[in-house]
C-alpha cells in the first residue's frame, strides 16, 4: 500500500509543478501576445524614469525575439527566457504606478492582507456549511431543508460585490462599523490589543460577506453529497444492525460525504479568489484583489502580471494540498 501511496503523491506533485510551469508560461504570453502588447508597449509609459526604462529593456531583453532566438548565438536569448530568469531571481519587475516600487514588495504585503480575510472566512464557511448541509440533507424536504436551499439559491444569485454593498449600507448606517480600509487612518494606538481591535472591526464586514457567499456554496455541495451517501446500501446495512440514527450520520454518512466535499472545495478555490477580489474592492481592503483591480484601472501592467501570477499559483498550490488530503482520506485511491 505504501508504495502506491508514494506513487500517488509523486504523481500529484509532479503534475502540480508542471501546471505551475504552464501558468508561468501562459502568464508571460498573455501579456506579450495579445493586441496592445502591454509589456513592451508599457515601456513607453510616461510614468517611468528613463533610467528605469533602460534597465528594464536590458533586464527583459526587449529587443530580442519573444520565444526562441534563431538569429545565431544562444537560442535561449529571448524575452521568454529572460522572463524566466528574472522570475527565478524573484524579480517581478517594477510598478509603473507606484513610483518604482518593486512588484514583489507590493504583492507580499497585499497577500498577507488578503490572507487576513480569506482564512477566517473559509474556516467559518466550511464549518457552518458542512454542518448546515448535513442537517439539511438529513431533514430533507422539511422546512429546515427548504430554508437552507432557499438561502443557497439566493446567495448564488447575489453577486458578491452587491452583497458587500448591502452589508456596507447596513453596517455603516446601523452598526457603526468602519466603511473602508484595514485600519483607521491616522489612529493612535495605546497597545497591540488596541491595534488588533481596530483591524478586527474593519475585518468584520468584508469577512462576513465572503463567508456568507462561500457558506451558500459549501452548504449546497455538502447537502447533495450527504443525500447521495444516505441512499447507499451500507446505510441500510447500518440501520439493519440497529445502530442509532445519529451515530449512522456521524460515523457513516458524514465520513463518506466529506470525501467529495474535499474535491469540490478544490474546484471552488477560483471562486474564493473572485470573491476576495470583489470584497476587497467594496471595502477598500488593501489585499491582493484590491491591488489587481487598482493595477487594472491604472494600466499598471507589471503589477497586474505579477498579481495574476500569484493568484493563479496560489490556486495551484491550494489544489495540490487538497488533492493530497483527499488521497490520504480515501483508501480507494490508487495512482490514476
Amino acid at each position, binding site marked *: 500500500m505504501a508504495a502506491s501511496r508514494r506513487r500517488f503523491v509523486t504523481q500529484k506533485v509532479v503534475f502540480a509543478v508542471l501546471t505551475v510551469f504552464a501558468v508561468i508560461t501562459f502568464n508571460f504570453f498573455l501579456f506579450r501576445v495579445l493586441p496592445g502588447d502591454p509589456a513592451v508597449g508599457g515601456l513607453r509609459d510616461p510614468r517611468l524614469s528613463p533610467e528605469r526604462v533602460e534597465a528594464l529593456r536590458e533586464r527583459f531583453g526587449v529587443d530580442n525575439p519573444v520565444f526562441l532566438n534563431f538569429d545565431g548565438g544562444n537560442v535561449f536569448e529571448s524575452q521568454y527566457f529572460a522572463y524566466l530568469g528574472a522570475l527565478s531571481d524573484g524579480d517581478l519587475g517594477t510598478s509603473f504606478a507606484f513610483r518604482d516600487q518593486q512588484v514583489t514588495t507590493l504583492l507580499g504585503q497585499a497577500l498577507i492582507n488578503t490572507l487576513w480575510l480569506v482564512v477566517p472566512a473559509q474556516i467559518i464557511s466550511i464549518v457552518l456549511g458542512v454542518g448546515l448541509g448535513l442537517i439539511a440533507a438529513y431533514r430533507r424536504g422539511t422546512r429546515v431543508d427548504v430554508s437552507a436551499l432557499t438561502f443557497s439559491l439566493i446567495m448564488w444569485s447575489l453577486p458578491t460585490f452587491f452583497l458587500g454593498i448591502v452589508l456596507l449600507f447596513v453596517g455603516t448606517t446601523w452598526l457603526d462599523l468602519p466603511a473602508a480600509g484595514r485600519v483607521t487612518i491616522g489612529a493612535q494606538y495605546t497597545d497591540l490589543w488596541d491595534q488588533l481591535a481596530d483591524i478586527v472591526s474593519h475585518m468584520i464586514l468584508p469577512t462576513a460577506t465572503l463567508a456568507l457567499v462561500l457558506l451558500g456554496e459549501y452548504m449546497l455541495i455538502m447537502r447533495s453529497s450527504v443525500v447521495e451517501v444516505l441512499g447507499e446500501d451500507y446505510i441500510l446495512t447500518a440501520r439493519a444492525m440497529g445502530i442509532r*440514527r445519529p451515530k449512522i450520520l456521524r460515523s457513516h454518512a458524514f465520513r463518506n460525504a466529506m470525501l467529495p466535499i474535499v474535491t469540490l472545495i478544490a474546484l471552488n478555490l477560483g471562486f474564493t479568489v473572485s470573491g476576495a477580489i470583489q470584497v476587497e474592492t467594496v471595502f477598500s481592503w488593501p489585499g491582493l484583489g484590491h491591488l489587481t483591480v487598482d493595477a487594472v484601472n491604472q494600466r499598471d501592467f507589471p503589477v497586474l502580471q505579477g498579481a495574476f501570477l500569484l493568484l493563479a499559483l496560489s490556486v495551484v498550490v491550494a489544489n495540490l494540498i487538497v488533492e493530497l488530503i483527499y488521497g490520504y482520506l480515501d483508501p480507494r485511491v490508487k495512482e490514476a
Partner: protein
Amino acid sequence: MKRFFRHRLGVIGLAMLLLTVLVAIFAPWIAPYDPYANVTITIADIYQPPSSMHWLGTDDGAKDVFSAMIYGARVSLVVGFAGALISVLVGGTIGIIAGYRSGWLGHALMRFTDFFLVLPDLALLIVLVAIVGQSLRNIILVIGLLGWTTTARLIRSQTLSVRERKYVVRAKAAGAGDWYTLRRHVIPQVLPLALANTVLVVSLAIISESTLAFLGLGDPLLISWGQMLNLGFTRGAVGAGAWWAMIPPGMAIVWVVLAVTLIGNALEDILNPKLGRHHLEPEVAVETPPPDVPVSAEVLFQVRDLSVGFEMPSGVVTAVEDVSFEVSRGRVLGLVGESGGGKTTTVLGALRLLPPNGRVLGGEVLLDGRDLTRMDDAALRELRWNRVSIVFQGAMNALNPVRTVGSQVVEAIRTHDESINQKTALTQAGELLELVGIPRRRIGSYPHELSGGMRQRSMIALALACGPDLVIADEPTTALDVMTQAQILDLLERLQRELSLAMVIVTHDLGVVNEACHDVAVMYGGKIVEKGPVARVFTEPQHPYTRLLLEAFPTLDDPGRRLASIPGAPPLLTAMPAGCRFAPRCPSAFDLCREAEPPLYETSSGVAACFLADPIAVAGARSD
C-alpha cells in the same frame, strides 16, 4: 417539455425571465426618461430620493434611476445570452471531442481544460478585458471564451459514459462509424444535459458582466446594472445614503440570475431526477389494529398475513399480500420467486427496513412471540443483530467502502454491548472472520481490496457478530462465480448446523433451496402460491407455477432436456389481474381461475394456492 410546466419553480423562473426580456425590448416605451440623453445638472437634482417624478430617484448625474434600470436590462441580457452561447458552443465541442476520442487528442484536450479550470476566472477576465479593451464586443468575447470550462467538463463526462453503454458498443461492433455514433447515440443523450447547463452558464455570464462593470471594466458607453453600481460606488452614493441608486440595480441582477437559475434547476431536476429518498428517513408507524390470534412460542419466527405496500404518487400500491410462513430453531426456509415476486420486499418489510415510502399494511411478524411491526424504535433496535440479522448481497456497497472490514464488525459488536472494549472486540472480530474462512490478517482490509467471495464472507461474519438466533440471507450467492457460490453455500450450511441457527434464504435459484433448505415457500405476484417441505414440494409440486419453475431449471441428470419456459411476463404491481395472479400464464387455467383468487389448500406436500387442489372446483370446471 410538458413536464417542465409542472415544475412550479421553473415556471416562475421562466415568467421572471420573460418579463425581463420584454422590459428590455420595449425599454424605449416603458422608460419615462431616456437615460442616454444629456441633462442639465443642478446640484439639487443629484441623488434625489424617490418621488413621483422619479420613481427610483436620481443618480449622481441627475439621471432617472428607474429608466436607467430598464435600459440596463438590455446589456445584461445581451451579454448573458451571447456570451453563454459562445461558451457552450466551444465547451460542448471540446467536451464531445475529449470524451469521444480516447487517444492523445482526448487527453490533451482534457489537460487543456483542467489547466483553464485552475486559473482563477475573475482574475483572468479582468486581465483580458484590460488588455483587449472595454468594448461590448470584447466583453462578450472574453466572457464567452472563458466560460467554456465547466461545460466542457460536464459534456466530456457525459460523452464518456454514453460511449461505454452497451448499445453504443453494439453499434460499433455492427460497423457503425464515428459520425453515425455521434449523431445517433452520443449527441441525443448529451443534448438535454447541455441544455440545462447552458442555462446555468447564462447566469454565470450575467454575473460576470455585472462584476466586470462594477469593477470599472464595463463598456463605458453603455448603461448596465453593474455600471450603475460602479458609478454609485465610486461617486459617493454610500456616503450620501443614496440607497436608491445602488440597491435597485443590484436587485435587478439578482432578479434575472434567480430567474435563470430557477429554470436551470427545474431542467436539471427533470433530466436527472434524483431517485427516491434515503435510508435514514423516519418511518411511518403501522396504523392497523392488532389481531388477537394466539401465539406459539416454540416457533421462533412467524410471519402472519403480512401485507406490504409502497406509496406512489398515484396512491398506495400493494407489493406483498397476506404472506404467512414460519421458521423454527434449527430449520432453514427457502423463499423462492423471480424478480418482482416480492420476496425481498417481504423480508425487508418484516424487519421494518423498507425505504421511506414503504408501508406495512397489515399482519404481524412475531419473533419469539413479540410483534416486530408494532414495536417502538428503541425496542426494535435492541433486537436488531442481537436476535435477527440479515446478510445482504455482498455487492460493492453493502459494506462501507472507506472503512475496514474489521472496523465494521467491531462496530456491530460494540453497538449492542458497550461494555466490550476496542481490543476485545477486535479479537472477536478476528475470530469471526476466521470462522467464515477469511484469514485473520485481512481484518484491516477495505472492501475494494477483497474479491467478491471474500466480501460475501465478510457480510456473513458481520451478520453473526452478535450471535443472532435468526439469520436472513437475501440472494447470498447471486452474482458470484459458480465455484464461489458453492463455497458460500457450503459455508452457510455449515454455520447453520454448528450454530443451530434458524435461517431464511431468499433466492431465485431452486438448486440453492434444494441444497440448503428444509422448507420452501414459493412466491408469485406478491403472494405465496405453494409451501411445504422441500423434499415433497420439489418431487410433487402442486402449483403449476412451481411445476413450470422446476422444469425451467436445468439439471445435469438429463442434460439434453430442453428447458421449459413460461410465456408472458409477471404481472405489474399496478395492473394485477383479477382472479388467480398466475392464470394469464398458466397452462391449466380454467374459468374459475380468472374470476376468483384461490385460497391456500392443504395438499399432500403442504399447501398450494390453486383451484386444481380443490376437487369441487375441478369437478365444476370439468362439467362446464
